[in-house]
C-alpha cells in the first residue's frame, strides 16, 4: 500500500528505475545477440526491433500501477482547470446555467418538502384525520359541514372501531379585560386529550389533565407562544396567575412552544363533555360546533374509517331527523394535512413542474455548450488519441471538465438556493400553509441538490465525451478539424436541444403570462367602491354567545343595536370620514348564508346570503337602487321586517315576477338566539349586483336587513374616508371605548390591505415565482441560442469566407445565418405552443378570470420569443458578415 504512495511522491526515482529495468533488458538482449555472432550494430538493431517502442512499453507499465490512476486524475483536473480557464466565457455561462437550475430546484423542493411532506412537529401526524359530512345533493367538492354536535361527537368517540384517539374542539372569542380596556383573543375549547394527541410538550407548566373542565374544578387555561410574547412580553412569572376571561377568573397552567399551532387558537380552555360542564352549555339546542380530529388505528384505510363513521351518523340521523342532516349524505375522512394545505398543494406542484422545466433547459444548455466545444476540439482529441491516449483516458479527461463544472455549479447553486430560499420565505403567503411549518434547507434537500448536480454532470458530460470519441479518431486529424460545410457533426443533436429548450421555455412563459393576466383580472375586479378609501373595524361587545349562558342586563336587542348606532354616529363625526355604516361583514369575501323560504312558494332548498346593515350601508359601498326603496332610518329604529335584495336574488328566485312585497323567511334565524324566529321579511327594494362571494365566483343572491332586528354582539363598522383609512384607526378605537370600555375592536384596517392579504397573496406568490422561473428560463434560452449560433458561425468561417469571396453580399450572409437560427426557433415555438395547449388545463385551477387558452397571451409570448430569438442570432450573424474573405479562407 505504501508502495504506490512512495512512487507517487518520488516520481523521478520511479521513472529512473523503470528506465533502468528496461535498458538492462535491452542490453542483455544485445549481449546475447553478440554472443550468437552478430555484429554489435546489427545486434542493437535487432534488439530494438524486437523490443518495440520503448516509450510505449513504459507507458503500459505505468498504466499497470495504481498510482497511475491518481496521477491521471490529478492531470485531468489540472488540465480541466486550464482548459476551462482558457474558455472562461463558456465556463461562466455553463456554471451559471447549472447553478440556476440547481438553485431553483433546491428552493422549490425545500418549500414542497417542508409544506407538503413534513410540515408539522406533531406526533404521527400522517395518521391524523378530519371528518367531513358531504351532502350528496350538492356538488361533489362542497362540504356540508365538518363540525358536529356534542351528542354526535360522543357517538363517534364511543362507537367507532377505527380511531385510536379522538379530539374535539371548537373556537370562541375570549374577551380579556385588564385595567386599560377590553381586548379580544381567539380561544378554543379542547378536549383534555388534545395536547397529548399532538405530542408536543409544553414550554412551561403542564397540559390539561383529564379532570380539568369538570364541573366544580378550578377554571384553568393554556396560552400559545405568540400571545405570551406579544401581550405579556414573554414574562414567565405570569404562570399560575389568574386572568379575567369572558368574565370568569382563570388560572394559567401552561404555555406552548413557538412551533405549535394546534387547534388554531391563541389560548385554550379545557373541554369536558360530562353533563353540565362549562363549554357544553349552549343557548341553542344541538349546535354543530365541535371540530373532530382523530388518529387512525394502524392499518385502517381512510375509506374504512369513513364507512365506520358514516354508519354511526346515519344511525343518529335516523333517530333524530331534522335540520342537522341533509336528505342523503355521506362521510369523507381525509388527512389533517390535506385539510390544512388543501389547494396550495396544487400551486406547489405547478411550481415543481415549472422548476423541473427550468432544470431541463439549464441541462440542455450546458449539454449544448459542451457539445459545441467538443466539436471544435475534435482535432485536439484526435491528436491526443494518436499520441497514445486511450479512449478511456480521453473520456475521463472530458468528463473531468464536466465534473469540475458541476462542482462549481453545485457550490454556486447551493449559495443561490440559500439566498433564494430566504427571499422566497419572505414572499410566501402564510395563510394556506400550516403555521408550524419551518421552511429551511434541510439535509434531504441538500442531498437532492447534490443528486441533481451529479445527474446533470452525467447527462451533460458523458454524452458529449462519448460522442467525441466514438468515431474513427485518426480520420479526423486529416480533416480541417473545424468541420467544413456539411461536416457539422453534431448539428442535429444540438439543433434538437435548442428546439427542445425553446419549446420548454414557451411552456413556462405562457404559464407565467396566463398567471399575469389572471392576476391582473383579479386585482381589477369591479368592486363598486374604492377599497383603498374604505375602512373596516370589527367591534365586539360582550362575551361570545356560546360562553354566555347566563343572560346579562344587556339582552334587549334594541339596546345592543343602540350601542353600535352610537359608535357609528361618532365615527361618522370624525374628521376625514365621509360616511359610516354598520354591517355584519363586508364584500367581496364575507357574508353569512341562510336557507330561505319564500311565502306562497313550495318549500325548496333555496339559499341566500344575508347581511344586517344600517341605512347608510348602500351609500357607503356605492350600491345603486334599481327598484323600490332602500332601508330607511325608521326601518332601523323600529327594527322593521323589511329587506333589500340584489339582482341575483331577483333573477334566481323571482324570474320575471315582481319582487317587491314578496315575503321571505331566513331559516337561520330560527336556530339563533336573539333573532326574530319565524319572521317573514318584506322585499322593499332591489339594488345592483356586486361581488359578494370572492373576487372570482359569480354573484350570489343576497338580502340586506336592518341590523337592529338582532342582538348580536359583533358588528362591522365601515366608513369611506377622505384620508388614508389606517390613520383613523386610533380614533375609531377611542370612539368605541368612549361609548363602552367593555367593547373591543378586533380586526381593523383598509379593505385594500385586507384584500392584499386575503385574496391576492397566493396568486401573487405563484405569479412572482413562476415569472421568476420563466424569466430565468428565457435568459437561459437566450444564452443557448446565442452560443449555438456563435459556434455555428465559427465552424462555418471557411464556407462563409468562400461565399463572400464568390460575391455574396453582407446582407445575404446575415440573412442566411438569421434564417438558420429562425428555423430552429420557429420549430421550437410551434412545438412549445402545441405542448402548452395540451398542458394548460392543469393550470385552470390556478388562474381565474381569464381563459386558459387566451389567444392574447399566446400571441404575446410568441412575439416576445421571436424577438428574443432573433436578437440572440443577430450578433453571430453580423460577425459572420464582417469576416474578411481572405482571412476567413486562410483561417486555420
Amino acid at each position, binding site marked *: 500500500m505504501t508502495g504506490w504512495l512512495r512512487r507517487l511522491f518520488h516520481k523521478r526515482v520511479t521513472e529512473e528505475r523503470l528506465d*533502468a*529495468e528496461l535498458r*538492462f533488458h535491452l542490453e542483455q538482449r544485445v549481449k546475447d545477440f553478440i554472443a550468437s555472432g552478430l555484429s554489435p550494430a546489427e545486434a542493437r538493431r535487432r534488439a530494438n526491433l524486437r*523490443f*518495440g517502442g520503448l516509450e510505449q*512499453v513504459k507507458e503500459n*507499465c505505468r498504466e499497470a500501477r495504481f498510482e497511475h490512476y491518481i496521477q491521471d486524475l490529478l492531470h485531468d483536473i489540472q488540465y480541466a482547470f486550464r482548459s476551462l480557464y482558457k474558455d472562461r466565457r463558456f465556463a461562466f455561462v455553463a456554471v451559471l446555467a447549472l447553478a440556476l437550475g440547481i438553485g431553483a430546484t433546491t428552493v422549490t423542493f425545500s418549500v414542497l418538502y417542508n409544506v407538503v411532506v413534513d410540515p408539522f412537529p406533531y406526533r404521527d401526524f400522517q395518521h391524523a384525520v378530519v371528518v367531513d359530512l358531504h351532502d350528496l345533493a350538492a356538488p361533489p367538492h362542497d362540504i356540508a359541514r365538518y363540525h358536529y354536535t356534542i351528542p354526535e361527537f360522543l357517538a363517534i368517540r364511543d362507537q367507532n372501531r377505527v380511531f385510536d384517539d379522538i379530539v374535539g374542539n371548537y373556537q370562541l372569542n375570549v374577551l380579556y379585560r385588564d385595567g386599560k380596556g377590553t381586548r379580544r383573543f381567539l380561544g378554543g375549547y379542547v378536549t383534555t386529550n388534545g395536547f397529548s394527541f399532538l405530542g408536543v410538550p409544553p414550554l412551561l407548566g403542564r397540559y390539561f389533565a383529564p379532570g380539568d373542565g369538570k364541573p366544580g374544578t378550578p377554571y384553568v387555561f393554556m396560552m400559545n407562544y405568540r400571545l405570551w410574547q406579544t401581550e405579556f412580553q414573554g414574562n414567565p412569572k405570569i404562570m399560575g396567575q389568574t386572568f379575567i376571561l369572558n368574565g370568569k377568573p382563570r388560572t394559567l397552567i401552561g404555555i406552548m412552544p413557538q412551533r405549535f399551532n394546534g387547534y388554531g387558537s391563541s389560548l385554550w380552555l379545557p373541554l369536558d363533555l360530562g353533563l353540565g360542564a362549562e363549554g357544553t352549555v349552549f343557548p341553542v339546542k344541538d349546535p354543530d360546533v365541535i371540530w373532530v380530529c382523530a388518529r387512525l388505528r394502524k392499518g385502517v384505510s381512510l375509506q374504512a374509517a369513513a364507512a365506520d363513521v358514516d354508519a354511526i351518523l346515519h344511525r343518529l340521523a335516523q333517530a333524530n331527523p331534522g335540520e342537522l342532516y341533509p336528505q342523503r349524505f355521506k362521510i369523507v375522512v381525509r388527512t389533517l394535512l390535506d385539510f390544512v394545505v388543501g389547494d396550495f398543494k396544487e400551486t406547489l406542484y405547478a411550481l415543481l413542474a415549472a422548476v423541473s422545466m427550468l432544470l431541463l433547459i439549464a441541462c440542455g444548455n450546458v449539454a449544448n455548450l459542451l457539445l459545441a466545444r467538443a466539436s471544435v476540439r475534435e482535432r485536439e482529441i484526435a491528436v491526443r488519441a494518436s499520441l497514445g491516449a486511450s479512449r478511456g483516458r480521453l473520456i475521463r479527461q472530458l468528463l473531468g471538465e464536466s465534473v469540475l463544472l458541476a462542482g462549481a455549479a453545485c457550490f454556486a447553486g447551493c449559495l443561490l438556493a440559500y439566498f433564494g430560499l430566504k427571499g422566497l420565505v419572505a414572499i410566501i403567503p402564510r395563510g394556506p400553509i400550516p403555521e408550524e411549518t419551518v421552511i429551511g434547507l434541510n439535509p434531504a434537500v441538500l442531498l437532492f441538490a447534490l443528486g441533481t448536480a451529479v445527474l446533470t454532470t452525467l447527462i451533460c458530460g458523458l454524452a458529449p465525451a462519448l460522442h467525441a470519441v466514438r468515431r474513427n479518431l485518426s480520420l479526423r486529424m486529416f480533416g480541417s478539424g473545424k468541420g467544413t460545410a456539411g461536416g457539422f457533426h453534431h448539428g442535429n443533436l444540438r439543433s434538437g436541444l435548442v428546439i427542445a429548450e425553446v419549446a420548454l421555455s414557451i411552456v413556462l412563459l405562457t404559464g407565467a403570462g396566463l398567471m399575469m393576466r389572471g392576476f391582473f383580472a383579479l386585482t381589477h375586479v369591479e368592486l363598486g367602491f374604492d377599497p383603498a378609501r374604505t375602512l373596516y373595524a370589527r367591534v365586539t361587545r360582550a362575551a361570545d354567545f356560546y360562553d354566555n349562558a347566563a343572560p346579562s342586563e344587556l339582552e334587549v336587542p334594541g339596546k345592543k343595536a343602540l350601542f353600535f348606532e352610537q359608535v357609528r354616529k361618532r365615527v361618522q363625526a370624525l374628521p376625514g370620514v365621509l360616511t359610516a355604516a354598520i354591517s355584519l361583514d363586508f364584500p367581496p369575501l364575507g357574508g353569512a348564508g341562510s336557507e330561505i323560504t319564500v311565502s306562497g312558494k313550495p318549500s325548496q332548498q333555496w339559499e341566500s346570503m344575508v347581511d344586517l346593515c344600517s341605512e347608510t350601508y348602500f351609500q357607503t359601498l356605492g350600491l345603486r337602487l334599481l327598484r323600490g326603496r332602500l332601508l330607511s332610518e325608521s326601518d332601523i329604529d323600529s327594527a322593521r321586517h323589511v329587506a333589500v335584495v340584489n339582482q341575483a336574488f331577483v333573477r334566481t328566485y323571482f324570474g320575471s315576477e315582481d319582487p317587491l312585497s314578496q315575503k321571505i323567511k331566513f331559516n337561520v334565524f330560527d336556530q339563533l338566539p336573539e333573532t326574530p324566529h319565524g319572521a317573514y321579511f318584506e322585499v322593499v327594494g332591489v339594488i345592483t349586483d356586486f361581488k359578494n362571494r370572492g373576487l372570482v365566483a359569480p354573484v350570489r343572491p343576497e338580502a340586506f336587513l336592518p341590523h337592529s332586528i338582532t342582538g348580536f354582539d359583533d358588528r362591522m363598522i365601515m366608513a369611506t374616508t377622505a384620508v388614508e383609512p389606517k390613520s383613523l384607526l386610533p380614533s375609531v378605537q377611542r370612539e368605541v371605548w368612549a361609548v363602552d370600555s367593555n367593547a373591543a375592536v378586533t380586526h381593523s384596517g383598509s379593505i385594500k390591505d385586507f384584500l392584499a392579504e386575503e385574496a391576492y397573496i397566493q396568486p401573487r406568490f405563484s405569479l412572482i415565482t413562476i415569472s421568476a422561473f420563466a424569466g430565468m428560463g428565457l435568459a437561459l434560452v437566450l444564452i443557448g441560442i446565442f452560443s449555438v449560433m456563435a459556434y455555428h458561425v465559427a465552424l462555418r468561417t471557411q464556407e462563409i469566407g468562400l461565399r463572400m469571396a464568390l460575391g455574396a453580399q453582407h446582407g445575404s450572409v446575415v440573412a442566411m445565418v438569421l434564417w438558420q437560427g429562425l428555423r430552429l426557433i420557429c420549430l421550437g415555438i410551434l412545438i412549445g405552443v402545441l405542448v402548452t395547449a395540451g398542458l394548460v388545463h392543469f393550470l385552470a385551477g390556478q388562474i381565474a378570470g381569464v381563459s386558459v387558452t387566451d389567444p392574447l397571451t399566446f400571441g404575446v409570448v410568441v412575439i416576445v420569443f421571436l424577438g428574443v430569438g432573433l436578437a440572440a442570432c443577430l450578433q453571430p450573424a453580423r460577425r459572420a458578415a464582417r469576416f474578411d474573405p481572405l482571412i476567413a479562407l486562410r483561417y486555420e
Partner: protein
Amino acid sequence: MEQEKVEVLKGTLDMLILKVVAFGPIHGYAISQRIQQISRDFFQVPEGSLYPGLHRLEDRGWLQAKWQETETGREAKFYTLTRAGRKRLSAEMVNWERLSEAVALILSTAE
C-alpha cells in the same frame, strides 16, 4: 524461424510469470528467456506484454521486487513470489488444469 513462435495466450502470461518466479529471485530478461527455454522455444514473450504484466503483478501484491547485483555485477530488478502470489499461482494452476481437461474432453469425443 522466429515468426513461427507463438505469442503467449492471453490471460495465461500471468500464470507463467508466477510459475517461473516461484523457482527463486529472477529478473525480467531471465523470465522471458526461461519461458522461451522451458517451452522449447514454443512461446515467445514480447517485452511489450512482459513488463506491464510484471508491474501489474507487483502492484497487486503477488510479486515483490528488489534491486540486486547479477552474477556479472550489474544492478537488476529481481522479482520474488509473495505468499499471496503463491496462493494465486496454485489457484490459477487448478483453473488451468480444469480448463485443459475440458478442452481435451471435447476434442477427444468421437463424432
